[in-house]
């Protein structure tokens, strides 16, 4: 389904110079400069960072710390917009080499939805990637700027090939959600490399390795249950490829790169149209008139998106960047849409959960729902008491931050928040180790990749 562009141009856009995990970019403009669409305004030298581009034509108002949907303040370029479609020159690349692709990704500022710049996912320092996965299991990322299902299917396959080429990977897979009939239908119709594509379900111990052999091809399309969560990469890798990612390591350590639909599409556009990453599709929820998706320019404040969609349905409530499960609640609507924004959700006050947490009643509901076999109730208490090394002994790092435990808890304990608190503390201790050599926390990476 084609998604609509936002009807009104925002008065000003706020383009954070850091829309990825890593160091912020160096601004390439200064106050008073005028910019055009697609102009690079923040540059990064490091392989692990990603440049940013202007999404509008206009004049730079200021470069200052501004609220960021992640919750903190980030150095941002604030641009007063002018109604104009002037862009920098977009030049498509013909038959790019892997090196060209990586450079292109870097220059186009393509970032994965989980914040890591795509080039460092595909070409991590000192590690080799042999499998590229496109995770299409989350509904926010599907649809987007495709006019027909066929276009979605073919463009994704093309993008996957580009990604594999860039990474030097031999295998690739697109992972769909098993109850997303629309996408499955989109892929099922396609002929690919002379064969009719079939979407294969991942069941039990049948991982993609089986289908790669079975179908005798390098690229497969598979489907599995939806996985929520902020830290799903390792879990996702295990579920899809059967490869276990040791604690403290990333999928790259087992040769897997995970990309999203958005970055795949962005790469496709960058190669075939020469466009950098300056607009993105987001979905909306809970507003007065919600279209399912809109195409917005990166940097558009939430306020403008919400106004364009009929405004707030109530006086107060909860504004959330990204979904109800994993999103970050915002205290101001002056935050911009960034490359990692997938959704804007709004909750009316009567829907906002404000239940007071009471003591855990050991109902074990959280244990039953946890997809990675943790005991969330115990982790929550240990985190609350500051017993972080015990949390570690109970494999707290495995938590994919899906939040199912906090959803189901009848005592309304903020389990996920506590777990993240403890994970944060454990990570801090990990960073501290060379300096302080704490004796009660012994952390380490089992993969030897450090």
């Amino acid at each position: 389904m084609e998604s609509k562009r936002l009807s009104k141009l925002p008065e000003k856009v706020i383009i954070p110079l850091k829309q990825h995990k890593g160091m912020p970019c160096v601004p390439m403009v200064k106050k008073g400069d005028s910019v055009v669409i697609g102009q690079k305004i923040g540059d990064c030298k490091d392989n692990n960072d990603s440049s940013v581009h202007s999404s509008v034509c206009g004049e730079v108002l200021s470069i200052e710390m501004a609220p960021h949907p992640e919750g903190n303040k980030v150095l941002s370029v604030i641009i007063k917009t002018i109604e104009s479609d002037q862009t920098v020159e977009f030049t498509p690349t013909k038959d790019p080499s892997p090196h060209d692709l990586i450079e292109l990704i870097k220059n186009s500022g393509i970032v994965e939805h989980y914040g890591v710049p795509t080039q460092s996912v595909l070409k991590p320092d000192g590690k080799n990637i042999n499998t590229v996965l496109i995770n299409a299991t989350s509904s926010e990322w599907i649809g987007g700027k495709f006019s027909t299902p066929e276009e979605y299917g073919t463009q994704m396959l093309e993008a996957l090939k580009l990604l594999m080429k860039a990474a030097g990977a031999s295998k690739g897979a697109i992972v769909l959600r098993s109850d997303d009939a629309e996408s499955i239908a989109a892929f099922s119709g396609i002929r690919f490399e002379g064969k009719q594509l079939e979407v294969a379900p991942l069941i039990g111990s049948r991982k993609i390795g089986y289908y790669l052999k079975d179908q005798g091809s390098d690229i497969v399309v598979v489907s599995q249950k939806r996985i929520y969560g902020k830290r799903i990469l390792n879990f996702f890798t295990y579920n899809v490829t059967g490869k276990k990612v040791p604690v403290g390591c990333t999928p790259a350590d087992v040769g897997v790169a995970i990309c999203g639909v958005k970055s795949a599409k962005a790469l496709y556009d960058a190669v075939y149209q020469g466009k950098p990453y300056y607009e993105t599709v987001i979905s909306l929820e809970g507003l007065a008139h919600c279209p399912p998706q809109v195409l917005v320019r990166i940097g558009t404040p939430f306020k403008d998106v919400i106004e364009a969609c009929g405004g707030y349905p109530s006086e107060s409530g909860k504004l959330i960047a990204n979904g109800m499960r994993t999103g970050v609640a915002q205290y101001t609507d002056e935050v911009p849409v960034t490359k990692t924004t997938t959704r804007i959700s709004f909750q009316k006050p009567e829907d906002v959960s404000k239940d007071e947490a009471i003591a855990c009643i050991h109902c074990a509901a959280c244990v039953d729902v946890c997809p990675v076999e943790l005991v969330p109730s115990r982790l929550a208490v240990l985190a609350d008491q500051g017993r972080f090394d015990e949390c570690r002994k109970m494999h707290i790092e495995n938590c994919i931050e899906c939040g199912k435990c906090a959803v189901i808890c009848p005592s309304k304990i903020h389990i996920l928040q506590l777990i993240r608190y403890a994970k944060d503390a454990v990570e801090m201790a990990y960073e501290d180790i060379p300096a302080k050599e704490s004796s009660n926390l012994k952390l380490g990476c089992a993969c030897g990749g450090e």
Partner: protein
Amino acid sequence: MADTSLFTIFMDGVFIKNFLLIQFLGLCSFVGVTKDVKSASGMSGAVVFVMTMSATVSYLLYTYLLVPLKLEFLSLISFIVVIAALVQLVEFVVRKNIPALYRSLGIYLPLISTNCAVLGAVLLNVRSDYGFAQSVMFGFAAGLGYTIVMLMMSAIRERSTLVSIPSAIRGLPQAFLLALMLSMAFVNYFWVIPI
């Protein structure tokens, strides 16, 4: 009761006359060393060993030395000396060879010699006129009963560090209230089982 069957003695020692909950023997270590399962199991292991050993040794001492010489009145003093020596020996060995266990048991290993349970088992053996096999079995069973209760208790106390307990109750009062519950369970449950 000299002809009581070994099975009866076993059940008696482990459950029906449980040292900790029903006979009140060995309570100091029960409230002291049950803060976590690891040290409780170490302590229990030590007690089972010492109890079985001292039941054996004291039986031999009593039957083959004191009784023939009609010196039964020396039994208490000689038992306690033998037990103390035995424990000391175990302590030396553990300290040298398993320092981790020694550290976690802390002061409790030497205190086994002054643990009522060990001497209690020996004295009850003498009072019940048990034979050799019966004495050894009773010593072992009593140790096992001790172990079971120690494990239950320590698991409960370990878990209860995860929940909120009123500050006045935390610590010893809680241990006693838990003991109240455990002893209500033991006293009432094993009553029916005919042995």
